[in-house]
């Protein structure tokens, strides 16, 4: 697979100084977590990495090529994105929604075949929403819709997964099973890059972390090195208690 790489990347957040240029490379098998308070630019970073927003400076590379040199279709065969919010102007069923993940792989003249449908159905099963296949997406609960969105990207089968708050709306069990699924993807040689709000999920499942500060400052590296309580307290402007559970740090906000 082609690793996703940010080179001298400055994301474009209106009214904010350039801050620090990002230089990192997401290698096969890695799981990256992006942490930061509201408005730090996590979603903007994700959309810039997917080529949906122009960076203010620098470039994003997929392997040898910068995203600007690639056609959207080529990008979408390597890079999948789970959005934080979804719009549904028109009613569509769960199966139809998952099936659009096959779009990058079909030529304009091709119709979806039984094989495509099998891929979509398998993805829905893996996300535990297969029983909802014929339901309209706008009638589902938030957590169910989140899992359908992840199933759509699983159907798309990209080498690099970008996810914006994948655990949003999910109950504890499904949070864990989604992160487990992403871990399996990474073990199979793909890579995962996601924004997370839950510090402890990030500490437990990510091997690399990127901390994004509201003023544009940023630092990144292996998770063990990044999980410094003082840095995290400054990141969220929140005092934290640290305990060790199961060999991993657990962060708890201090109650006054």
């Amino acid at each position, binding site marked *: 697979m082609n690793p996703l790489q940010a080179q001298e990347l400055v994301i474009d957040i209106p009214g904010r100084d350039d801050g620090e240029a990002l230089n990192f490379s997401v290698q096969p098998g890695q799981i990256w977590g992006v942490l930061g308070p509201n408005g730090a630019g996590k979603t903007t970073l994700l959309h810039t990495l997917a080529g949906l927003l122009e960076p203010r400076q620098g470039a994003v590379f997929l392997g040898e090529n910068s995203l600007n040199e690639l056609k*959207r279709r080529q*990008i979408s065969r390597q890079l999948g994105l789970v959005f934080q919010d*979804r719009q549904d*102007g*028109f009613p569509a069923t769960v199966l139809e929604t998952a*099936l*659009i993940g096959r779009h*990058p792989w079909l030529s*304009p003249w091709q119709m979806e075949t039984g094989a495509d449908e099998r891929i979509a159905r398998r993805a829905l099963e893996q996300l535990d929403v297969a029983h909802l296949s014929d339901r309209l997406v706008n009638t589902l609960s938030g957590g169910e819709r989140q899992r359908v969105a992840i199933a759509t990207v699983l159907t798309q089968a990209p080498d690099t997964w970008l996810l914006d708050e994948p655990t949003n709306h999910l109950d504890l069990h499904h949070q864990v099973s989604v992160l487990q699924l992403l871990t399996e993807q990474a073990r199979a040689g793909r890579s995962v890059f996601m924004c997370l709000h839950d510090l402890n999920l990030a500490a437990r499942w990510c091997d690399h972390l990127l901390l994004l500060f509201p003023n544009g400052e940023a630092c990144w590296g292996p998770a063990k090195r990044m999980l410094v309580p003082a840095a995290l307290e400054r990141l969220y402007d929140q005092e934290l208690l640290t305990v060790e559970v199961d060999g991993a740090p657990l962060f708890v906000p201090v109650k006054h």
Partner: protein
Amino acid sequence: MSRPLTMPLLILALASLAAMVLSVGIGSVSVTPGEVAAVILGEGSHLQQTLVLELRLPRTLSAFATGGLLAVAGALMQVLLRNPLADPYVLGLSGGAAVGALLAMLAGLGGLIVSGSAFAGAMLATLMVFGLAHGTGSWTPSRLLLTGVVVAAGWGAVITLMLAISPAQRLPGMLYWLMGDVSYARSPWPALVLLFLVCLLVVPLGRSLNVLARGPMQAAALGVSVRPLEWMIYILASLLTATAVTMAGSIGFVGLVVPHMLRLVLGNDQRLILPACALAGGTLLVLADTLARVVIAPEQLPVGVITALLGVPTFLYLLYRSR
């Protein structure tokens, strides 16, 4: 998707054929379906030949083409604006066309010049809305919609002004044009060819349109070049609407109601919905035009009145039922 696409289209095609035979047969002189078939095969009496081939068939085909074009344009606009309630006229197209047509009528010109002027007006309105909506910022559906609505209101004022200052003897023709009337239509063939070409075009474009209906960001993430596709839909829908308006004046509700009803029954796969709109929109307008000819025969109603009378309650009902 997995459900067969051909069956609904086959049923709709048969329905349009039946509607056309009915429409050609009904009138001051009745022609049976058998006689219609005979005339089309080159037989039948001279009177029947003239009646069918020169009077009724061109009108029926014009009605079909107009209805089909409007319904397809409506369906395309709805995908473009991600709004199931969009209509081919919502962006002020018919207003521009009407001003063009009325100007020509006011100048005492007729026939081809009215049509040409209407077409020019529609295209001018298209460019104006697109240019203004583009503005200095981004090109969002809500901005396009708002610009279109405001420009349409402006056209409305100009139309009222023109009606107020025009001499009384020209008023009936103008009002008929404004309400939509297929009897003005000339050759139906260019419009029919256009309709057919568009239906062919949606085969390779259809899946991209399906993805675009999920929003531009999602579509881009799935490999659709959103901006060129949106431009293409906008130009195409404008061209279709302008052609329809030029043929038959402004006929409301076909572009709104037909795609909406078909989506309720057939789902939202554009590869099915767009050809189905062409057939169902055509059928609806053929039937409405037949009704307009016979309800108070020998007088005729403008077909736009019929479609609005049918469309308003249907649409309100759908809106009331919608979640």
